[in-house]
Each structure stands twice: as structure tokens, then as C-alpha cells.
């Protein structure tokens, strides 16, 4: 008996997860639709979706902080901090996190948006518990070493050069967003302006980390072949003792004033073809108009049978590609974006005119019932298809949770189903107006030395 106990103890010691003795009594607030929802005493919210179709799982930590929360002059802080989150704690040194994950056949990564920052791992489901201790550790003990900061700052500058400075279409994107917002911090790019990046110091990162990386400002999402009850016990063990953030944290809100007149920006840069990007201010989900705007986006641009592709690419051949995207899944009101690359030898003005022509048509005449049906089918089908991937499922829950509550998923689908042809006309008239738009045009120039 004693021997067995010794053997058992040594087996447990080999398991790299701390066994916590404290009593675990999670509050299960809700159970439906397969989602188990918990909230720890320190404010950490946990969503677990058991999905046993494949032996895999994803573990994700979503922090409610993004580039919109950065102080002026420090754009890019959230994203640089996200990079530093891989640079270690006293317990696990730089990149040790990723090495442990990879050694176990998993992958890990992270991304930053204007509204939130997400860390995720994908594993075989028998290894998923590994993520728990590691994420709990870097939620509270990040080192942010000075030398590592300087080095990672250069890495991010290289990333900026790669994605923006040397990419003409993305450069235009940056210009148009900056011109669209005068007041709201959505104005600045997530990656940060180059001069701001240069000014970010170690202490800026540390203070920002301490202010925002707290359990009450985070949500854990797990989707996959896991046992929810076991997972929540382990999560409570590892995350339960982390101190919540300051209760009276100041939340500054910004309201972008109504735009009263078209804004135009031009970018002259070495490029092959002219490119057009147009942004209209629109409300965000779950505003009552957001559903119709979403359906409108699909009618205009949901595939090759959509109106914009048919007109600009297929019939008129003025554009090589064209996109419309209502981007309503933001914390604050954002934009309805249109983009098109001109075909060789075509004028960008013709592209722009053709685009407006399609928009104007929708203001005059409601779309066919068939078109509305098609858009709705596309949305419903994509919801089912996305469940093929645990990662995509977790992303969906996370995104709705960031907007307030994952249950908004149901409200979203209900809202979409109710959209009528008349609603489409109404939102097109209300938002897709000249005075409400910012138009950006990329004018290709040829550098002398380029052959």
C-alpha cells in the first residue's frame, strides 16, 4: 500500500501541472447551447465548449485591451506588449512557453486588434492542460527585460516595414483609416506609427501590462475534446489567486463626431495599379441597423454572383477585384469598407463611379428577395462550416463575448433572419452617403531606378 502511494506520488510529480489542494467551487452561471460559463472570484470569466469530434482543443485568453486604449504618442504599445508576452517570466524564460507548446506538438500565437488582444494555443486534447499554468504565469509575472524590449521593438519595426511601408495597398489602408477618424483612437494603426514605436520604453510596457492584464479584464475560452469540469478545476487552481485590477479604473470613451462632407486622401507610391479604398462610418453590432448592413455587404460582395463583382469585374472589367465589408464587430462604431484594384489601362475614376452606381441602385430599388435569401444562406452556412474548426468556434465566441456577451450570437442570427429588402434600402440610404465617406486613392508612381 505504502509502495503504491509512493509510486502514485512520483507519477503525479512527473505531471507538469501543479496539483492544487484548495477547494474548488466554481459558479456555473449558465449552461445551454453547449457553452459552460464560469466566473472566478477575481473576476476571470471562463467559457468552455466541449466538442468531441476530433482529439484536439484550443485554449485562448482574451484580454479586453487593444490599440484604442493606448495613450497618445504610444501607438503600437498593445501589440508590442503582445510580443513581449513571449519573452518570459522568472519561472519560464524567453520563448520557453512556445518551446514547451511545440515540444508537445502544439502551436501557439497571439494577435492584437483595435479592441482586444488574444493569446491562443492549439493542442492534441491530452496536452491542453499544459497551457493553463503557462498562461496563468504570464498573466501576472511577466519580466519585460530592458534588453529584450529593445530587440523586440526592432522586430516590430521590421514587421511594420513588411506589412505597411513596403505594401502600397496596406499603406493606403492606414491613410484612409487615419483620415476617417478625427477623435476616436481607431484612427491609429494597431502596429503603431514608426515614430511612436521608437518612443516606447520598457516602463511604458510594464505599466500598461499591470493596468490591463488582470483576471477581471480577461476571458478564457476553451473549445475542444475536453472535460469542462476538470478544466475549470485546474483553471481555478492556477488563476484563482491572481489579484484583480484596480476597481476604479478610469474608462475613457470617445465619440467620433458626425462626418459632414467627403474626405479624400491620395497616396503616391511605387506600385503597379491604382487602388481605391472607401470608408463609410456605420454603427456597430448590436445596433439595430447592423444586421441589414451585414446582409447588404453580402449582396454587394458575397462571391462572384454578387453585385459588385458582376458589375465591376465581370461586365465592365474596370477592376481586377472588388470587396465590400461591413466591419461591425467592433467595440465602438467603425466602418463599412469598399476596395477595388483597377484593371490595367483602366482609370480609377471609372472604378469609383461604377462602385457608386451599384450603391445608388440599392437606394432606389430594393434587392430581390432571392438576393436577400442568398446572403442569409451564406451567413447561416458559414456558421455551420466554421464549426468544423475548434479554433474558428472559439474565435466566434470570443468575438461576441468581447462585444458584451457570447449569447449575442443568437441575437445576431435572429437579427439576420429578420432583415427585409426594405431594410437594405433604408441602411444604404442612411449610411452610404457622399458626406459620410472617406475616399482613398493609391496613385502608382514609377521609381526611376525600377526596371
Amino acid at each position: 500500500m505504502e509502495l503504491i502511494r509512493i509510486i502514485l506520488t512520483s507519477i503525479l510529480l512527473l505531471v507538469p501541472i501543479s496539483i492544487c489542494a484548495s477547494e474548488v467551487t466554481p459558479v456555473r452561471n449558465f449552461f445551454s447551447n453547449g457553452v459552460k460559463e464560469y466566473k472566478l472570484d477575481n473576476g476571470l470569466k471562463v467559457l468552455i465548449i466541449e466538442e468531441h469530434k476530433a482529439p484536439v482543443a484550443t485554449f485562448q485568453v482574451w484580454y479586453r485591451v487593444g490599440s484604442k486604449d493606448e495613450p497618445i504618442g504610444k501607438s503600437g504599445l498593445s501589440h508590442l506588449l503582445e510580443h513581449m508576452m513571449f519573452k518570459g517570466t522568472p519561472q519560464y524564460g524567453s520563448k520557453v512557453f512556445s518551446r514547451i507548446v511545440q515540444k508537445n506538438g502544439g502551436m501557439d500565437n497571439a494577435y492584437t486588434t483595435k479592441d482586444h488582444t488574444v493569446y491562443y494555443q492549439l493542442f492534441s486534447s491530452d496536452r491542453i492542460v499544459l497551457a493553463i499554468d503557462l498562461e496563468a504565469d504570464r498573466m501576472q509575472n511577466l519580466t519585460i527585460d530592458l534588453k529584450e524590449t529593445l530587440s523586440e521593438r526592432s522586430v516590430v519595426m521590421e514587421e511594420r516595414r513588411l506589412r505597411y511601408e513596403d505594401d502600397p495597398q496596406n499603406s493606403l489602408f492606414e491613410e484612409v483609416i487615419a483620415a476617417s477618424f478625427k477623435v476616436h483612437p481607431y484612427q491609429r494603426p494597431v502596429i503603431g506609427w514608426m515614430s511612436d514605436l521608437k518612443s516606447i520604453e520598457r516602463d511604458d510596457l510594464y505599466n500598461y501590462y499591470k493596468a490591463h492584464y488582470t483576471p477581471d479584464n480577461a476571458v478564457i475560452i476553451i473549445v475542444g475534446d475536453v472535460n469542462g469540469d476538470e478544466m475549470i478545476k485546474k483553471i481555478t487552481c492556477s488563476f484563482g489567486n491572481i489579484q484583480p485590477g484596480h476597481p476604479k479604473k478610469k474608462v475613457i470613451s470617445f465619440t467620433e463626431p458626425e462626418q459632414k462632407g467627403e474626405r479624400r486622401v491620395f497616396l503616391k507610391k511605387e506600385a503597379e495599379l491604382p487602388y481605391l479604398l472607401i470608408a463609410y462610418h456605420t454603427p456597430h453590432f448590436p445596433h439595430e441597423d447592423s444586421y441589414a448592413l451585414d446582409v447588404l455587404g453580402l449582396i454587394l460582395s458575397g462571391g462572384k454572383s454578387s453585385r459588385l463583382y458582376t458589375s465591376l469585374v465581370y461586365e465592365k472589367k474596370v477592376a481586377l477585384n472588388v470587396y465590400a465589408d461591413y466591419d461591425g464587430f467592433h467595440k465602438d462604431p467603425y466602418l463599412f469598407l469598399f476596395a477595388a484594384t483597377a484593371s490595367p489601362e483602366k482609370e480609377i475614376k471609372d472604378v469609383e463611379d461604377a462602385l457608386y452606381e451599384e450603391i445608388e441602385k440599392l437606394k432606389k430599388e430594393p434587392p430581390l428577395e432571392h438576393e436577400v435569401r442568398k446572403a442569409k444562406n451564406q451567413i447561416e452556412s458559414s456558421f455551420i462550416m466554421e464549426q468544423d474548426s475548434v479554433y474558428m468556434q472559439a474565435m466566434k465566441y470570443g468575438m461576441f463575448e468581447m462585444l458584451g456577451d457570447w449569447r449575442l450570437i443568437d441575437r445576431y442570427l435572429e437579427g439576420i433572419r429578420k432583415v427585409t429588402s426594405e431594410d437594405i434600402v433604408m441602411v444604404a440610404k442612411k449610411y452610404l452617403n457622399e458626406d459620410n465617406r472617406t475616399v482613398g486613392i493609391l496613385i502608382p508612381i514609377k521609381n526611376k531606378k525600377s526596371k
Partner: protein
Amino acid sequence: MKISKNRRTLIVSLIFINFALLFLIFNYVFALDVNPVRAHVLKDEAFLEQQRNDFVSTALKSNTFSNGVNRTVLQNGLTVIHSEKHSLPIVMVTLLVKASPLNEPQEKAGLANLTAELLTEGTKNRKSSDISEEIEFIGASLNASAGKDYTVITLSVLKKDIHKGFELFSDILLHPVFPQNEIEREKGLIKGSLRQREEEPSFLAERAFKREVFGEHPYGRLVEGSTETIDNIKREDMIKFYSDYFLPNNSILSIVGALTANELNSLIEKYLGEWKNVELPYNPPLPPFSKGGLGGFSDGKKIKKVIKIDKDLTQATIILGHFGISRDNPDFYAVSVMNYILGGGGFSSRLMQSIRDEMGLAYDVHSFFSSHKQGGIFQIGVQTKNDSANIVIDEIRRQMNRIREEKVSDEELSDAKSYLTGSFPRRLDTNRKIADFLATIEFYSLGLDYVEKYPGYINSVTKDDILKVARKYLYPEHYILVVVANQEKAMVRQ
């Protein structure tokens, strides 16, 4: 150029990943472009190739996978692989046709690609617009595209719409008519997109690199061809190419999803019953690699070549590499482990640790062997600000030398093995991925038990094997180096 198949995957926009994952793949559409309306730029050829390779280069430990897979060869010669999965009401279909640039004449480069593109642009029953309208109405997707070794037609459809889906799939596969006006239109789009891609430094670098390594072999050119060769393609060429190669005895049909064997059989009978076995044409032997390049091995002699492309850029895009190995090379697995340690292993690789983490000189640096039926390439790719180009190139060569000179550590070896063997369940975690994977292992004759055998292949690799393959397949003195940069600032040494 294709519009996003699933626009909903673009919902999460404006995001920045910590590191551009070339080897850790999942959803490339989702793969995090900055500008939400430009997800198409990520459909870059190297990336997709790498994806294809990855599918055949890692293992599934779990037996949940192979148990339910059935393989049959029909009377008309079509190989059918079926895996029944009822967890979701969806069906994923992948048809792999052995038709690719390997089967097209050099002066008509782009024929395989154009033929694939035209399948969805008109049949004897439907106009181009009818096809997209019908498939999009049911929220499904149906696409055809050509790669280096084969053409793939994929259908993703809800179970409730399976008949409609199969009807359209069968129509584009069996009854394409290649309308002249659609050919002209599609040519214009392809040429336009080739021109637009000249804006991308990585596109310029890849194109120059492949041309130099493979010379006149079809692997040395773009699948799309070039403006000149596209103009040479006639409707008759496409009709002939289609009728020569789009045959059941030249194809693999892989189906994963909520479909029983009986349901599948009746679908095949109903929608593909008229697809007849025809003898394949004789394919003349392809130009030997040595004619053009071999990436440093021209005419049996080892050489070094530096190609500089001057553009007004802030970063130098660098590719250094040479000829690699074909997929059937027995050293494939030792090479996989070696490359993981050198530059394939994401954050853990030596190149990443040194050039990104220690030197802070790049956002991403990676190495890969891209292995096809008839050969492959080895390449290291990186972007760094113009004036660090030389330092980074030196470090790349130093790392290539190091792995050829010293044995890797025990820890590096075991980490690489445990990643490669342990990552499989995750990498076959969707029906779409499994459908593509099954077709690919059949094409490369890896056997349905490949997933069980793979860990053995990887685990048998020793430190000596790694040293041996590093010495055999890496050439730090004889390579093709492509640098797209502001050359005045980069000042790359010859």
C-alpha cells in the same frame, strides 16, 4: 484573385499576429492580413506549396483517423477515398486530377491553370453566372485550381444541399465548354493580377529564385504562366488538355463528412456515372533540370549566383537556397527533422532564435524544403531593413555551416521529433483538412497507413543522419541568392 470563399472568415480584421507562421498552418484565408479587404494576398504560392508539403510531412498518432477510411477503385478507374463523419451536417469533397504544368508545353505555360479556372466559367447546362449564383445561393463553395503537380476541385457543402452540390460539381467536371469570351476575360484577370503582384517584393523574389533553380523545367515558372505564354493559349489547347487529363483513371476523389457509403455510391452513380475511362496520352520527357539551373549545380558544376532586383523599398527581401529533394527521396524524413531544427521550427528554430530573438533583425525567418513529384527546392527566406541585409545573409550561411559541421544537441533532436510526431491530430482537425490530406497521400503513394507509420520514420532519425543529410543537401557556398531591395542601401556583396 479569387474572391474569398467564405467572407465570414474575414470578420476578425485588423489583427497582427506575433509571428508569420509558414509552417504551422491552419486557415490561410484567416491568416491575419492587416487590411480586411485584402485577404487574397495571402494566397501566395510558396505558402500554399508549403501547406501541401506539410500535409504529407507529419503524422497522426490517433487511430481515430485511419479506422474509418475506405479506399476503392471504381470500374472507370477512379480512386475513391471516403471517411464518414457525422459530427457536423457538412460534406467536404476534394477531387485531385493529375493535370498540371508538368503536362503543358513551355510556350503555353499557364494552360493547366487556365483550364482549371475555366471549369467554373460555363458548362453545356450553365453559364458562368449561373454556376456562381447556384453555388453561392446554398452557401457552398466550389473551386478549381492548378498546382505544381496536380489540379484540385473542391466542394464544401451542407449535407442538406448535397444533391445540388454534386450536380454542380459534376457539371463543371464533366461538361465544361470553355466559352471564348470567358477565356478572354479570365486571361485578362490573370494577367492583371500577375502585374499587380509585382508590387509584392516576395513575389518578385520567389519568381526569380524558382526560375534560377529549375531553369526550363515547369517547376521553374509560375503556375499562371506569363503574359506572353498566356497569350499563346488557344481554346483548342484547353479542350485538348481537358479531354486528355480530366479522366477518372487519372483522378482521386476524396470525401469526408456526413455521408454513408451507400449515400456516396448513389451520388457517384447518379452524378459521375457517365465519366468514362480513356487511355492517357503519352507524355514526352521533360527538360532535365540541369539545362537551366539546378540552383548552383549547372552542368554538374557547383556555382553561386546573386540576383539583385532594385526597388524603392525599406526592407530587403532575401531568398537564399538551391535545389532540394523530391517527395519520394528516402531521406525526406531526416531532412524534415534537420530543417525543423535549422529554420522550420517556428520560434524554436535556430534561425529564428538567432536572427529574430537575439539580433532583432527580422519579423520572420524560415527555411523549408518544398518537395514535389519531380524535384524540390530548399530555401531560406527573410525580410530585414536594407542596411542589415549583409549581416543577415552572413548569419544564414553561418547557420547552414553550423548544422553541417556539428551534431545537433539531444534536446534539439527530441524537441523536433516530438513536435513533428505530436502535431498531427491538430493538423487534421477539420473535415476539410482531412479530405485534402487523403487525396494527397494517395497521390504521393504514401499509403493509408501513412499516419501510423510516420512517427516511426521520424523517430528513427539519428543525430548522424541529420549531419549526413545536412552535408548532402545544404550548400552554404553554392547557392542562388535573390535580394529585392533598395540596392544602394543594401549593398549586398557578390
